[in-house]
């Protein structure tokens, strides 16, 4: 039995998305660097100069609390997965907990696993709630991803994410059926302690990293649960671009319609740790009771988490209690490379 399944059934009782309002077109980045652009990714989200993983987690967390309809004091853990925590040393979790009005008697922690830090926090939270140690916990995946100016990653490194509040399955809008996690030491992408931008192993990030790990996690999860692609209404894959998730979806027998609601990278770019939680928020925004949703994340370094949910009738009660993911996608202000360089602190003010 490789499946991760808690003793007490656990579900998502509230979810909340956040995407900053600024967008830069990939053709604008290509204009500056005379690059080739990023294919089907038209533009990426850019955080404002006063935003970071902490402020964005606070807004997503408030949205999740509004849908969960529980007092912030009843949350027993706030775990934030990100590769862009504002501090190298000082937890994001304590600031977010304080801003959300959580009690001091909680666990607050920051997770890091490249792009799958958010689902890592979610799976740990399944254990925390499923063991009975906590009634409710909040798992957040959020990033303000950094790409070196001119690097291929700059075309897609975006900002956004989602917050998920876990609680007893009986109270949930979507029950977590189970999870599976697969990891191996694979050096495809990394950022050293004091480096501002990450390094990547070019094409090595494809087959031995993304496809191998997601493929393993996906196949094992389907085998262990005795399900196939047609058992799911929707599927969400980690989306560093548009091509990778489309390729793995096709190979595994999923249709473009199953993939579409949670595939946001063509509109906002790659939100790293935020990508799968945000894709899940967008899918929950349109899912019907009884729908099953499969999600498979990927984080460089490397690993993949697969989990699935069954949507309950409570989804219709909670959906309208906070802004939809689409509301954030539609709220867009286009900026040029100069403003982007200012907002992302690529201009040295010599402060």
């Amino acid at each position: 039995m490789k499946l991760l399944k808690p003793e007490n059934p656990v579900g998502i009782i509230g979810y909340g998305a956040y995407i900053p309002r600024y967008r830069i077109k990939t053709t604008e980045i290509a204009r500056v660097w005379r690059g080739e652009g990023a294919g089907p990714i038209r533009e990426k989200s850019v955080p404002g100069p006063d935003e970071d993983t902490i402020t964005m987690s606070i807004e997503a967390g408030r949205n999740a609390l509004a849908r969960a309809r529980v007092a912030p004091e009843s949350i027993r853990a706030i775990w934030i997965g990100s590769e862009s925590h504002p501090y190298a040393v000082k937890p994001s979790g304590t600031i977010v907990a304080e801003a959300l009005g959580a009690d001091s008697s909680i666990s607050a922690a920051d997770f890091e696993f490249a792009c799958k830090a958010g689902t890592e926090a979610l799976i740990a939270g399944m254990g925390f709630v499923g063991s009975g140690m906590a009634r409710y916990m909040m798992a957040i995946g959020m990033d303000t991803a950094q790409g070196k100016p001119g690097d291929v990653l700059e075309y897609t490194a975006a900002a956004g994410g989602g917050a998920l509040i876990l609680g007893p399955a009986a109270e949930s809008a979507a029950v977590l059926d189970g999870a599976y996690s697969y990891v191996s030491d694979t050096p495809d992408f990394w950022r050293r302690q004091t480096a501002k931008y990450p390094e990547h192993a070019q094409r090595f990030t494809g087959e031995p990293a993304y496809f191998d790990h997601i493929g393993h996690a996906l196949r094992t999860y389907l085998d262990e649960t005795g399900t196939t692609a047609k058992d799911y209404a929707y599927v969400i894959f980690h989306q560093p671009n548009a091509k990778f998730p489309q390729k793995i979806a096709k190979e595994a027998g999923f249709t473009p319609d199953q993939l579409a609601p949670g595939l946001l990278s063509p509109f906002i770019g790659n939100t790293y740790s935020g990508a799968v939680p945000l894709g899940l928020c967008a899918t929950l925004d349109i899912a019907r009771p009884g729908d099953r949703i499969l999600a498979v994340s990927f984080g460089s370094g490397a690993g993949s988490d697969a989990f699935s949910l069954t949507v309950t009738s409570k989804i219709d009660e909670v959906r309208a209690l906070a802004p939809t993911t689409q509301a954030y996608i539609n709220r867009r202000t286009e900026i040029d490379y100069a403003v982007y360089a200012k907002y992302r602190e690529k201009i040295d003010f010599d402060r």
Partner: protein
Amino acid sequence: MENPRHWRLKKQRYALVGEICPHCAVKIFPPRDVCPECGLEAKTSYQFSGKGKIYSYTKMTDGPAGFRQNAPYFVALIQLNEGPMITAQLTDVGDEEIKIGSPVEMVTRKLREDGDQHGAILYGYKFRPVLQEVSA
């Protein structure tokens, strides 16, 4: 370094936590423990909704130290729905017209960084144009 002051003010700054007077029910922000209306003790904490309207505003084209790189930006007097008037920065101003009476909502953002790259990051309330839900 003003860590003690920032630490003391964190609840009101991060989440607009003020007070409500147990005697005359007036909502108080910032918290001051004495009701400005009836003069009696008021220490009951109160979570403001964060919704309000622009009472007046100005555009800052040359900000003070710590805010200069954010210029131009708006500073506004916000009349909170619960009554109090507070001063705050506006943020996420896009194509919306900023005018007196515009509805705004509170968000928690970076205010500034204490010192250069080595200091603490200060977070607090700002207001933005109300997020529009998509029509179904």
